[in-house]
C-alpha cells in the first residue's frame, strides 16, 4: 500500500511539473546556501590559517607606534621609533628569542640587461630566512659577514627572478643586477612562498640591512622587527621580554605607553579565525533561514494542493481511505518535493563548491557535515511543513469534501 501511496504522490507532483519545480526551488536554493556557505567559510578559514602560518612559525612582529584598541598598530610606520640598536638589544638580552631580524623596505627600480622592474627592496639580516621559513630555490641567503660588511649582494624573490631573467638562458646566481643604479651580485633565488601576510613575498629582493640603510638616507630606523620564539610555548614569554627590553632601550618611564606594538602570530590567528567564525555563523544563519523559507513555500503549495484536491480527498474517503492513508499521501508528497529539492541543490552546490575551491586555491570544500545537515534539515522541513496540510486533508469530513466545489 505504501508503494501505491508513493506512486499517487509522485503522480501528483508530475502532474504539476512547473509548480513542483518552483516549490522545490526554495529548497534547492536553501541547500545550496547551506553547502556553499560552509564551503566558503571553510575556504576562508583555510586561507587565513595558511596565510598566517606563512608568516613563519612562532613569529613576533614588532612595529613602531602605539597600540590602538583593536590591537593593530595605529601609526603604521609614522613615527619610526625602532632602530637597528633595538635588534641588537633583543638578540643579546632575551633568552626566549631565538632569531631576530630587522626589516626595512622601499621600492626601487631594478635592471638586468634589457629587463627592468619596479619592486620591493627589503633589508634584512642572515636570520630572516629562519624566522620566515624562506627556502632557497638556487644559491644561498647572505651570511652574517656580508651583513656586517654591507656587501652588495641580493636574494631574488621567484617572481622578480622570472621578470628580470625572462628570456635569458643564464643561471641568475652570480649575475650582476642594478638596484638604483648600484651593481649587486645575485647570490640566490628564494623558492616561491606565495602571498603571506597580505604581501606578495615573491615580488621582492632581499639585501643585507646595512646595505639597505646605506641605499636609503643612512638613518638606522627600521620599519619592522621580526623575532621568533624558541618554541610556541614561550611565545608570550618572548613577547614580554621584547617589550621590557624595548621599554628600557627607549627609556620609557613606568606609566607611559609603549611606543611600539608587538603582534603575536597566535593572537592574530585567533582574532582572524574568530572573525571568520562569526562570518560563517552569519552565513549559516542566513542559509538556514532560506531553507526555512523554502519549507514555508512547500507548506503553501501543499495547502493549495489540499484545497484544489478536496474533491479527490472526498472520493478517496468515500471509497474507504483511512485518515492515515490520506495524510501519508500528502506527507509523502511534501517529503518528495523537499528531498528532490535537496538532491538537486546538492548537485548544483557540489559544482559550486568545486568552483569555489578553484578560486580560493584550497582543497575540496565539500563538507560531509554540511551535506548531511542540509539533507536532514530538508527531510525535517518536508515533514514539519507537510504535517499541517496533510492533517488538514485527513481531517476533512467525507461528505464536506465530496460536496466541495
Amino acid at each position, binding site marked *: *500500500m505504501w508503494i*501505491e501511496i508513493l506512486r499517487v504522490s509522485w*503522480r501528483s507532483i508530475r*502532474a504539476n511539473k512547473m509548480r513542483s519545480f518552483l516549490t522545490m526551488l526554495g529548497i534547492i536554493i536553501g541547500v545550496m546556501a547551506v553547502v556553499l556557505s560552509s564551503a566558503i567559510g571553510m575556504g576562508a578559514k583555510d586561507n587565513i590559517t595558511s596565510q598566517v602560518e606563512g608568516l613563519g612559525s612562532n613569529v613576533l612582529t614588532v612595529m613602531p607606534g602605539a597600540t590602538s584598541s583593536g590591537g593593530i598598530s595605529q601609526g603604521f610606520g609614522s613615527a619610526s621609533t625602532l632602530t637597528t640598536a633595538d635588534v641588537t638589544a633583543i638578540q643579546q638580552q632575551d633568552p626566549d628569542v631565538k632569531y631576530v631580524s630587522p626589516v626595512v623596505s622601499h621600492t626601487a627600480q631594478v635592471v638586468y640587461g634589457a629587463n627592468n622592474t619596479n619592486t620591493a627592496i627589503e633589508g634584512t639580516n642572515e636570520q630572516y630566512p629562519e624566522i620566515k621559513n624562506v627556502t632557497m630555490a638556487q644559491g644561498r641567503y647572505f651570511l652574517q659577514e656580508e651583513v656586517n660588511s654591507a656587501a652588495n649582494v641580493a636574494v631574488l624573490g621567484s617572481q622578480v627572478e622570472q621578470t628580470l631573467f625572462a628570456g635569458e638562458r643564464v643561471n641568475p646566481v652570480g649575475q650582476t643586477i642594478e638596484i638604483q643604479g648600484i651593481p649587486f651580485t645575485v647570490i640566490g633565488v628564494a623558492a616561491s612562498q606565495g602571498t603571506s601576510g597580505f604581501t606578495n613575498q615573491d615580488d621582492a629582493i632581499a639585501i643585507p640591512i646595512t646595505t639597505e640603510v646605506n641605499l636609503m638616507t643612512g638613518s638606522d630606523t627600521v620599519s619592522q622587527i621580526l623575532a621568533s620564539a624558541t618554541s610556541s610555548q614561550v611565545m608570550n614569554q618572548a613577547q614580554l621580554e621584547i617589550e621590557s627590553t624595548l621599554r628600557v632601550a627607549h627609556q620609557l618611564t613606568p606609566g607611559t605607553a609603549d611606543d611600539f606594538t608587538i603582534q603575536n602570530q597566535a593572537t592574530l590567528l585567533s582574532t582572524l579565525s574568530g572573525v571568520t567564525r562569526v562570518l560563517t555563523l552569519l552565513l549559516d544563519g542566513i542559509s538556514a533561514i532560506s531553507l526555512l523559507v523554502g519549507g514555508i513555500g512547500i507548506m503553501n503549495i501543499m495547502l493549495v494542493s489540499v484545497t484544489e484536491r478536496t*474533491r*479527490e480527498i*472526498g*472520493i*478517496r*474517503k*468515500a*471509497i*474507504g*481511505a*483511512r*485518515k*492515515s*492513508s490520506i495524510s501519508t499521501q500528502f506527507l509523502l508528497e511534501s517529503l518528495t518535493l523537499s528531498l528532490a529539492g535537496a538532491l538537486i541543490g546538492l548537485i548544483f552546490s557540489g559544482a559550486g563548491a568545486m568552483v569555489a575551491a578553484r578560486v580560493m586555491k584550497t582543497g575540496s570544500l565539500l563538507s560531509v557535515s554540511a551535506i548531511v545537515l542540509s539533507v536532514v534539515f530538508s527531510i525535517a522541513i518536508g515533514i514539519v511543513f507537510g504535517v499541517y496540510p496533510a492533517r488538514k486533508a485527513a481531517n476533512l*469530513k*467525507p*461528505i464536506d469534501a*465530496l460536496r466541495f466545489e
Partner: protein
Amino acid sequence: MSALIEIRDLVREYVIGDQTIRALDGVNLTVERGEFVAIMGPSGSGKSTAMNMIGCLDLPTSGQYVIDGFHVASLSEDQLADVRNRKIGFVFQNFNLLPKTTALENVELPMMYAGVPARERRQRAMEALERVGLANRMHNRPNELSGGQQQRVSIARALVNNPVLILADEPTGALDSHTTEEILTLFEELHAQGNTIVLVTHEDEVGERAKRIIRFRDGKVESDTKYPQLEGVPPHVD
C-alpha cells in the same frame, strides 16, 4: 439473520447561522438483504441526506443506525472508513471518478485501501469492468469516456469489493433516457445476482424498476410500498 439496514428515529439537523434545518426528522426504515429499494420524493425532502447517513459519509444528529450488525454511532472514523470500504459501494450522480486516472485504476482504488495485493487487484478490476460491459475501455481516462461509460466505471468501482450494499444517489440524473435505460438494466442484473441496492431518484420510470418505493417528504418517510407481485423479492412485512 437481522436486517441489513435498521434505522430508528434518525434526525439530521443542519445549523446555518442561527437557523436550524431539519433535513431528516425522525426517519424509521428497515432494508433486508437482497432488496432493490428506490427512495423518491420532491427535491429537498432529505433523500440525499438519508443516503449519506446510510453510506456512513455523514453522522446523524440523533437516532440509531445499524448496518450489517454494526452500530454506526459507536464506530471511530477509521472504522467508518472500513465500513465504507468493505460493506458499501457508492454510485454518485456526477460519477466522482478520479480525473487523470484510468478506468482500471479507478476501479482498483477501493481494493488498494482494502489491502488487496496488486496482481489480484488488477484481475478483479478487469473482471468488474467486464461485468459492466467496459472491457474495451479499461485504459481510458474519465474525460475520454461518455457519461454512461463513466457511470459504468463507477458501478464497477462500487461492486468490486463485493459490498453488502450498493448505494446510488440519482445515478441516472446526468444521463439521457437511452443511457438511463442501460444503467437501470445493469442495476437489475446486479439485483438478480443477489446484490442489495438502494437508489435515489425523482424519476417515476426509474423508481418503477425497483421492488420497493420509499417516499420522503419534509424529512420524513411519507409512504413505503412493496411490489411483491414482481419476481425476486420475498414478501416481507416489517
